[in-house]
């Protein structure tokens, strides 16, 4: 069955610490991968996405993610977090087989301490 796993449910970091959030997917074919973020009181919004090409993708606010096909992973990274990065982060996958169905991970709540 298709699935997306996020193993870190809650992460607490101090400002300036480095961040890496794990995401693994299980799909039978080619997928497009996304990271979404939900800041407190705001809509879910796209952070970055991978379709093809360079496996290292850069998104907004200094975030990046690396697609490693052999590991079925799409981990999110940021070298130095800020207090304003406190949010919930969701990894998602979309099969390219034409089903239009996105599958989301369970989310990771990040709290950055000032």
């Amino acid at each position: 069955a298709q699935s997306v796993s996020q193993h870190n449910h809650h992460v607490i970091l101090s400002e300036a610490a480095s961040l890496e959030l794990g995401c693994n997917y299980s799909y039978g074919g080619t997928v497009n991968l996304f990271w979404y973020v939900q800041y407190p009181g705001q809509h879910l919004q796209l952070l970055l996405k991978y379709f093809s090409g360079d496996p290292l993708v850069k998104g907004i606010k200094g975030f990046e993610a690396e697609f490693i096909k052999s590991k079925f992973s799409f981990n999110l990274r940021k070298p130095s977090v800020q207090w304003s990065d406190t949010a919930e982060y969701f990894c998602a996958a979309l099969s390219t087989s034409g089903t239009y169905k996105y599958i989301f991970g369970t989310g990771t709540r990040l709290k950055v301490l000032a």
Partner: protein
Amino acid sequence: SQTIHQWPATLVQPVGSPLSLECTVEGTSNPNLYWYRQAAGRGLQLLFYSVGIGQISSEVPQNLSASRPQDRQFILSSKKLLLSDSGFYLCAWSPGLAFQETQYFGPGTRLLVL
């Protein structure tokens, strides 16, 4: 530009009462539309999606139904609410015809069934 609206923002309903949540999209045509339920620690669960008027796909058996009476309108309904229907409901849209597209989320409706 495109915008997505959901209403009501918050709803408190007694068990056994009917439900109707509405989602409308502006600024685009023939979008793919989605209903999700977001629960703490469980991420986003896809409930329904639609690729066109009158075309609804259900992802999980449940007490809810969806309809798409117009191109940019998506309605989530129930004839009789259960306590377990409480949650945060998100509507989203993505451009049709392409598999790579980002989803854009509405502000959500928080439903409390008492």
